[in-house]
């Protein structure tokens, strides 16, 4: 191959160069900003992770798996996954092979950014070689791959249902500019390379295009208009990239090492949060996931729009969205990047002062022992914390005590004379410092009781005891786990009934703590468990969550109705819940019975013959 022009330059490369340099500068400044905004201990964590082979291995795996191949999207819908990975991987290969071509044939131009991109214009074929044909074939092949993805992307804009998405995000004006210029890039590349394929070489895709042009024009390779168009499309795309959703392309590369180093969100718009905010591709998967999307008006409260408002620095609007969120976590779980939506919103809530200085000093005056009452029978010692909600759903506490008594457990009621709240409602509203007083008091009571096991019947309390208390040497158990263990060991014996029950995964227990199987195993001993339409990590929030500060009664009612519809898809006889708040919320609106897990177990214990 030889160069067509001695200068190795043409003015049409300028739009591309301007765009490229702009984007590179923006990304470098962005990385510096993020690094500076990280706290020192997070920076040290990051440096350590970069020399840790296990974590670096995970980084490489994620770079390929998430950034290029979009594996998570494939799992959700194969067409959607193909569309994204064909564009991402195809474009990556085009750039890579373009650089290989440049280094093979004209290494002295290797330092120029534009040369590999516009290789077919600047180089002419002297004599066909096998290596050359192979490279041309690969370039055309990957161009075809990308074009197929672009066609699917165009279809998705008009018929998103074909890709398995019920709804898609609303685009801003700059998003549209970016989108249309992205769509234009590859067809323009095909046309441009088609103009020069007679001289610069090509393969199965570009050569037929060249024949078409050659039949109209005598020397198509001298027409630079198509190359101008291609360069302008590229330049436009890169100039708008930092202001559109396409910033996720570079941002995700930066996010992955930060996430794998174990760094988490601390401030709402700085540091790690900045990396996450820009990694959001506005794909819209969170729209269908959010339980508030049952109302069309609720769509504007989803994570994708929250992120948009934070990026625009529209704090009042972002705060309004953050205050409405149920904090159920479903958007995070389904997000292809697993953006920590709850942490982002929590960090914004923490910034609010609410002008209040809580005073929990009255707790110090309460003697620990005055709250507890022991019911000693001699056996495994357990401290049972029923929680604030349980006095509004007395059947739970009653059933738990029935089971514990039958099992011969020596248990102490931690809050029979008054409850000190576990602190999670305070934590969820961003009041972390204030919650510490409650946590300290409860820790004192727990330690003083001397019990090795803390049993809780509320999913919300369980999550907080696990995550926010550090109870050395004390095992915190949720009653679903504990009763399953008791049944497994044969301490309690259960009888199987003929009815069909469905189990609702509470947000805090399922997505929050990863407990999905223990309750199902226990329930399978007493009933025929039928599945809900969506369950486990895709279960739909009951709507009663304390995470939301501003949802109205009517809005919650609609969310509950939707959740009940999901649960009753297979016509069960009753809904089984493992959280008193879920139970209270469902029993208000459910036509079928709503029973608590402990109630089901207690009702079906086999009497021992004396």
């Amino acid at each position: 191959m030889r160069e067509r022009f001695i200068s190795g330059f043409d003015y049409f490369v300028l739009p591309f160069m301007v765009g490229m340099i702009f984007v590179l500068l923006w990304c470098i400044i962005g990385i510096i900003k993020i690094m500076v905004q990280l706290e020192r201990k997070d920076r040290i964590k990051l440096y350590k992770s970069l020399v840790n082979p296990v974590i670096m291995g995970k980084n490489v795996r994620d770079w390929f798996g998430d950034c290029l191949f979009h594996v998570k999207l494939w799992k959700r819908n194969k067409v959607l996954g193909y569309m994204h990975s064909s564009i991402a991987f195809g474009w990556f290969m085009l750039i890579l092979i373009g650089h290989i071509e440049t280094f093979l044939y004209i290494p002295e131009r290797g330092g120029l950014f534009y040369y590999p991109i516009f290789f077919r214009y600047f180089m002419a074929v002297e004599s066909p070689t096998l290596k050359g044909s192979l490279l041309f074939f690969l370039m055309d092949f990957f161009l075809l791959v990308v074009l197929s993805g672009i066609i699917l992307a165009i279809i998705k804009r008009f018929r998103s249902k074909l890709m398995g998405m019920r709804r898609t995000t609303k685009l801003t004006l700059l998003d549209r500019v970016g989108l249309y210029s992205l769509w234009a890039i590859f067809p323009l590349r095909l046309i441009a390379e088609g103009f020069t394929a007679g001289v610069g070489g090509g393969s199965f895709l570009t050569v037929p295009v060249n024949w078409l042009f050659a039949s109209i024009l005598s020397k198509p390779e001298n027409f630079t208009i198509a190359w101008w168009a291609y360069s302008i499309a590229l330049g436009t795309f890169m100039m708008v990239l930092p202001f559109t959703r396409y910033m996720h392309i570079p941002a995700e590369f930066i996010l992955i090492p930060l996430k794998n180093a174990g760094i988490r969100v601390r401030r709402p718009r700085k540091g790690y949060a900045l990396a996450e905010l820009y990694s959001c591709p506005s794909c819209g998967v969170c729209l269908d996931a959010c339980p508030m999307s049952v109302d069309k008006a609720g769509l504007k409260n989803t994570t994708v729009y929250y992120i948009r408002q934070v990026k625009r620095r529209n704090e009042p609007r972002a705060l309004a969205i953050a205050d409405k969120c149920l904090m159920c976590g479903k958007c995070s779980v389904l997000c292809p990047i697993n953006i920590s939506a709850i942490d982002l919103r929590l960090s914004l809530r923490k910034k609010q002062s609410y002008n209040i200085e809580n005073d929990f000093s009255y707790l110090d005056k309460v003697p620990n022992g005055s709250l507890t009452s022991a019911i000693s029978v001699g056996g495994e010692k357990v401290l049972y914390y029923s929680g604030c909600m349980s006095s509004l759903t007395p059947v739970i506490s009653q059933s738990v005590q029935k089971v514990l008594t039958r099992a011969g457990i020596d248990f102490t009621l931690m809050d029979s004379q008054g409850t000190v709240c576990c602190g999670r409602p305070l934590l969820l509203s961003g009041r972390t410092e204030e919650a510490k007083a409650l946590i300290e008091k409860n820790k004192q009571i727990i330690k003083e009781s001397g019990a090795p096991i803390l049993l809780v019947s509320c999913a919300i309390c369980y999550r907080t005891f696990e995550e926010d208390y550090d109870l050395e040497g004390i095992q915190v158990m949720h009653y679903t786990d504990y009763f399953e263990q008791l049944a497994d060991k044969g301490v309690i014996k259960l009888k199987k009934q003929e009815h069909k029950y469905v189990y609702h995964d509470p947000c805090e227990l399922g997505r929050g703590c990863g407990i999905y199987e223990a309750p199902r195993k226990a329930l399978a001993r007493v009933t025929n468990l039928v599945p809900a339409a969506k369950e486990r990590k895709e279960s739909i929030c009951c709507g009663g969550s304390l995470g939301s500060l501003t949802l109205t009664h009517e809005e919650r009612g609609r969310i509950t109705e939707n959740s009940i519809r999901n649960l009753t898809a297979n016509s069960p006889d009753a809904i089984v819940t493992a959280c008193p708040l879920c139970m209270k919320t469902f029993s208000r609106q459910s036509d079928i019975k709503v029973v608590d897990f402990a109630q089901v177990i207690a009702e079906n214990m086999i009497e021992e013959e004396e």
Partner: protein
Amino acid sequence: MIDFGYCLTPSSTIEIDDADLRLFDELCNAEPDAIKCISCGSCAASCTAGVFTDVNLRKVLLCLQRGQQKDVLPQLKSCMLCGKCHIVCPRGINTRHLILSICKIYNI
């Protein structure tokens, strides 16, 4: 002037004419359901902190309606935001948001 040994004590009547309800209007804008309250007392009866202190949301809201906030607002410092009041309220008032809004607007 002869000192008769007594003076006029201020009347314990609440003068509604002089009550300053501007902050209460702001509260109703932030939480429109606040005015639905019928002072039934469910909130105070189920209050977790009410076992240990004299927190009484019903009383606070009623006093705010009369412009008598000074004495009752400090009670809210003891609130644990646990949400039991929200569950039992028969008017469907979002009590947790109400408490946070009161704190924000009245600047206790």
